[in-house]
């Protein structure tokens, strides 16, 4: 395998891995649900993106033709991740989960819960 391909793939892989991990770290360590929500929904998209790009490059190289079907996974993730986040946020507001005290505009969450205007 050519070095630069290996390099690129490795870089993408490790980057992806790191983002995936960061997402999960965020999930594990951030102080309240709403902040935790940020970690995975974003970091994983990029993390996954990197991994999939690595996979794409490698597969293209190995199979000798353009392998792009990994894009489809990314597409799915990009479409669904926001809805997941939205639904989870709705759930959290519905359960009136404790919001970190220093969050500004806390009262907005109550308005949002009722889907009223602020």
């Amino acid at each position: 395998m050519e070095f630069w391909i290996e390099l690129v793939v490795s870089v993408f892989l490790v980057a992806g891995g790191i983002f995936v991990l960061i997402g999960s770290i965020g999930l594990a360590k951030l102080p309240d649900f709403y902040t935790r929500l940020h970690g995975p929904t974003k970091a994983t998209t990029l993390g996954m993106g990197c991994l999939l790009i690595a996979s794409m490059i490698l597969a293209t190289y190995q199979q000798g033709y353009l392998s792009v079907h990994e894009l489809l996974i990314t597409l799915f993730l990009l479409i669904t991740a926001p809805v997941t986040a939205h639904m989870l946020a709705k759930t959290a507001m519905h359960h009136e989960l404790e919001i970190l005290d220093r969050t500004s505009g806390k009262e907005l969450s109550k308005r949002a819960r009722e889907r009223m205007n602020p």
Partner: protein
Amino acid sequence: MKTKPRFRLLPMPLHSLILFVVWLLLNNTVAPGHIVLGGFLALTIPLLTSGMQNTQPGFRKPLATLRYVLMVIGDIIVANFEVAMLVLGSSKKLSPAFIAVPLNIEHELPITILASTVSLTPGTVSAEISADKKWLYVHVLNLTDKDELIASIKQRYEQPLMEIFEC
């Protein structure tokens, strides 16, 4: 919003196009057999599912769309780095916030896309949309300037979307 009568066999041309591309993506091929099959599927599946689609304003500006997509991808990348820093740093330094973004666009699809974009980009998650679809509630991981953020959302994402959907 104008709803033109469409060619019955092609109720959703954009869908058909996407499906056709996705088919080729899935199969990793441009073999003639798959082109025929993909074409066939791209025609029939929308026919089958057209009943399941609420009519939405169509895309009118392919170029603007592309530009928007690229911009969002760029933002996602940046956002991820920022969020990464925030996550790895001390969580005591975070100043999270709820904000309400007033919306100008009205249709469901553009609003959904806007909310999705917001969720995908730096430190913001669309938490809720008001029942009258006039407000987007956003949770911000680390708020520095509320008005600036609102303005940036409106200008950076809502504007182009209004342009794309001609509404």
